[in-house]
């Protein structure tokens, strides 16, 4: 732990930094402990197929969690990531199935729609000074409604777009290493995580993301156009949700307009378990990934052990409270 007397450590830049090293370590240790525990409890758990199922289950939640991590580091919150994901999936459905456009255009449209919606949320928060909780709560409902309106409340199938389901379900890695059929969805999650981590650690946008969460007023008084940067961050998060929309649509080979509510809370839970502070200023993508994995391992492991689904939910809730409590206790000690 960093204290006033122990100050000589060289620090890598934020992002994959050891800023939240303790929480990440704790989260990582919990993940390993869970994996070991479940393997002992059930021989079916440590199977390649089951591991791949866990990764597959992490991919969508992981991408959304990465998006919401950005917003949370600025000191905000985004409740609209779940329904935004669905909205983007529906947009992809409209472009591909209704309009018959090529696949790449559908993907681009979904990501663009996500970025645009993120920009809207960002405008509400930065320009209109609506608290992020309220602004994105409004956005969440608007997008849920719009998805249903646009799709006519019916799922849109991607049967006319051959190869669309391969975006998530295919396995480029498996083609090269047949022993390791990791689905593309997982590959995309990792690419998104690495790119976002790079943005957070190496670019102006990332530096301002941390600065805004650390002390927005000080940043404004340094002559930085804080409103504009905040809008950009929300837009980036929205674009990442667009990728999430593509992933879920591809996995289901359809855009399910009724889906989406509840995903935002799972994403936020993953972020929190991963040690990102809800008060902003600190957080890491690696932590978020571990958080998302813990959630997926828990759900999967409890299912393998035939624990009733309702109890799985109870356990997940308890884990979230424990994770935040550990973070709070640590911070109290260090301050």
């Amino acid at each position, binding site marked *: 732990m*960093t204290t*006033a007397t122990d*100050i*000589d450590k*060289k*620090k890598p*830049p*934020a992002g994959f930094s050891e800023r939240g090293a303790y929480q990440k370590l704790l989260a990582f240790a919990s993940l390993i402990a869970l994996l070991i525990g479940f393997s002992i409890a059930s021989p079916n758990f440590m199977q390649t197929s089951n591991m791949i199922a866990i990764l597959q289950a992490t991919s969508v939640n992981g991408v959304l969690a990465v998006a919401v991590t950005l917003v949370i580091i600025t000191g905000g919150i985004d409740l609209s990531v779940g329904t935004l994901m669905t909205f983007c999936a529906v947009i992809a459905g409209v472009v591909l199935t209704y309009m018959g456009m090529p696949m790449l255009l559908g993907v681009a449209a979904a990501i663009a729609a996500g970025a645009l919606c993120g920009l809207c949320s960002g405008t509400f928060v930065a320009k209109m000074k609506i608290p992020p909780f309220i602004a994105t709560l409004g956005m969440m409902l608007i997008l849920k409604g719009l998805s249903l309106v646009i799709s006519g409340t019916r799922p849109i199938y991607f049967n006319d777009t051959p190869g669309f389901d391969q975006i998530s379900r295919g396995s480029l890695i498996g083609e090269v290493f047949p022993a390791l059929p990791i689905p593309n969805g997982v590959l995309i999650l990792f690419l998104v995580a690495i790119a976002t981590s790079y*943005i957070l650690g*190496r*670019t*102006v*946008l990332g*530096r*301002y993301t*941390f*600065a805004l*969460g*650390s*002390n927005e*007023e*000080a*940043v*404004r*008084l*340094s*002559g*930085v*156009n804080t409103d504009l940067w905040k809008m950009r961050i929300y837009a980036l998060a929205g674009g990442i949700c667009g990728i999430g929309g593509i992933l879920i649509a591809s996995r289901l080979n359809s855009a399910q307009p009724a889906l989406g509510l509840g995903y935002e809370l799972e994403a936020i839970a993953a972020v929190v378990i991963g040690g990102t502070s809800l008060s902003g*200023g*600190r957080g890491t993508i690696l932590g978020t990934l571990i958080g998302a994995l813990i959630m997926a391992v828990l759900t999967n492991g409890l299912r393998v052990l035939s624990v009733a689904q309702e109890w799985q939910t109870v356990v997940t809730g308890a884990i979230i409270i424990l994770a935040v409590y550990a973070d709070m206790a640590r911070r109290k000690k260090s301050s």
Partner: protein
Amino acid sequence: MEKLVDMTGIDKHFPGVHALKSVQFNLLPGEVHALMGENGAGKSTLMKILSGIYQRDGGTLEVDGQIVSPTTPREAQDLGIGIIHQELSLMNDLTVAQNIFIGREPRKRFGRLDDAALNAQTAGIFASMNLNLDPRTQVGSLTIAKQQMIEIAKALSYRSKMLIMDEPTAALNDAEIAELFVIIRRLRAEGVGIVYISHKMDELKQIADRVTVMRDGEYVGTVSAADTPVSKIIAMMVGREVNEEPLDPPVLGDAALSLEVSGLNRGKDIRDVSFSVRKGEILGFAGLMGAGRTEVARAIFGADPKDSGEIRVHGKPVSIRSPKDAVRAGIGYLSEDRKHFGLATGMNVRDNIALASMDRFVGIGGVLHDGEISTTAKSYIQQLGIRTPSDAQEVRLLSGGNQQKVVIAKWLLRDCDILIFDEPTRGIDVGAKSEIYKLLEDLAAQGKTIIVISSELPEIMRLSHRIAVMCEGHLTGILPGGKGTTQEDIMHLATQRTAAMQVTGTAQ
């Protein structure tokens, strides 16, 4: 006459500070006893001991001839001591009566509230104050003066025999002050003792019977308000020795004007403030708490909107609507509250230094050149003597003086040649203070324009080539720096209600 309160030999220590050194104070029934002193003289601490918020470390406190030691505000209330804080503590959405009886509402059986009794009792108190107000009025809809009356009514509802009023007129206009004084006089006639804390000389002359002056945590003396000239009270307030060599301000007669402010207005906080500063000059801003100095700085910097006023930088009018505009014009502002307004404390030294100049370090695709940031930061760390183990150290782990230097580095890197320092040495220890002073002098010598806002008169006199004094939003005068100006001269202007002196807005 029996004393209501008699405090003798009161001592109070805080970590690192001897806040009260054997202070005495007494209060008679039916008098208004003013307590005066500069910021930090110990007035508030003394009154917090009387009202049970702090406990004394030594000395005796007698109320009605009995030695007491109230340990909570509630116990003090039971002794008949009511305090009205400068920051009103009312709940705006509740009614007047609900506010007055908060926590001890009259009840009917089964814990049901008795609103009729509540309103009747409140009406009774108002009648005794000769105040015409409906107990069911929502507090938020009242003027500040009326809210202050509510606070007084609340204190009286505890059957207080004495009231402590901490700068009650700070937020009031003349008519409201007159209204308040009527109430105070009525209470005095009924035998209530009133401790009146204020910075304003003319008010003391109007309302106070006796004046006790404190300075640097010590008791200076108690005098009659009517028979003592204002100049003597001021002399008692500032009477400390000036140890520093008097400053010899440089002659800057032909240096270019770098900042001109004229007709600056913002509500009640800033009223028609005009001044100008030359290249290489240090202009000090003196005044008591709440005089509007920080507000002027923030308005110039665009941190708060202004109602009117023109700002010229290097002779050219500039439109400043946000800090971004100010920074572009070359103005940097170093807030008195570094942690809230100056630093991103969770970030490291080099990012804080680069915070206002990130665009210089951006490459293709928004990628930052961290190596360059680090090199630049290191050169400032060396130049300003910032003591930090590395440029990647989190700033929250640095000392106050070094944090201040990080903020200075931020503005130097941004090429700001007009720097406004708000309380530059607050929270900085003595050794680091002189380092900061030296730094400011060097910056001025290099041709930067420096404005220093400070509540410490010695600091103002140590640094300023000229001294602007503010009181209640007005610029009451600009004095020359150096040995020609005394602390008394500054205090005179700082306690003046309206501009009596000719404001010499232009540079010497």
